[in-house]
């Protein structure tokens, strides 16, 4: 059975496993299966949205987008 890192990388949740620090790698290796399943499901929805709208996530850089809905609480 594939480990968390393999599953997340295969699903595209992790773009480049080599970019992870050892501490981050440990966190991801210890994820519960429910956490992994949810992350993969969200990635699938993201990929579907990008395919339908013809853009978006592929060009999104970390930190590029700031207007989060954090104002909600």
């Amino acid at each position, binding site marked *: 059975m594939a480990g968390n890192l393999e599953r997340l990388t295969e699903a595209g949740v992790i773009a480049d496993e080599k970019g992870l620090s050892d501490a981050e790698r440990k966190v991801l290796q210890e994820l519960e299966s429910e956490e992994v399943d949810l992350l993969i499901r969200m990635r699938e929805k993201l990929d579907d949205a990008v395919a339908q709208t013809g853009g978006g996530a592929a060009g999104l850089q970390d930190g590029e987008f700031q207007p989060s809905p954090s104002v909600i*609480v």
Partner: protein
Amino acid sequence: MSELSQSGRLRTKLRLAEPRLAEVARRFWMQPRLAEAYPDFLFLVHSMIRTSVPLMREAAEVARGLAPADASGAPLAAYYERHAREEMHHDEWVLDDLAALGVGRDEVLARRPSTAVAALVGAHYYWVRHVHPVALLGYLAVLEGNPPDEGHLDDVRRRTGLPEAAFRTLKLHAHLDQQHRDDLWDEIDRLPLTPDAAGLLAVAAFHTIEQVSLGLEEILARHGG
């Protein structure tokens, strides 16, 4: 190898989930009919913000009941009580912002909120009451974890031509949430979290990202975005 803090572990998990919300949010803010959609966004914000104080009070009460057998009970209760006081009346601010757009209080309160909001808030009531009140920290980690950017809000205001008064809540949170975010990370680091509680916290955060994304997608669909 140095271990990450408890908040660092959560943030590592959130970084993997956030692209889902970031992609929808980017489409929302870049849509050509943003001025027409913005009141719906504020309605979505109000639908959620009106539940924050009652949710935190509920969580505080449940957490208090867990102490002293559960070491996280007392600090969680204290945190939720304090933060509920900080968040009081923010729903009124959003109503004022909507009024600046010509949307009256009665109209807002009579409108049925999105099922995404019910699924978001309802799940947290369930987790708080029937699993563990730590779940609500996952909700707060998403909603307060990335404070809005004031420059972006100015850009939106210029692009839409909407009045400054319609952005008051967002602008205030651009400042307030920076402190709230730091307080939240500190609180998570101080809590005696079991692995199970840390997992629940992350699942609740992922659920929050998904439901807020769905709420934004509903608005986009309504406005042809």
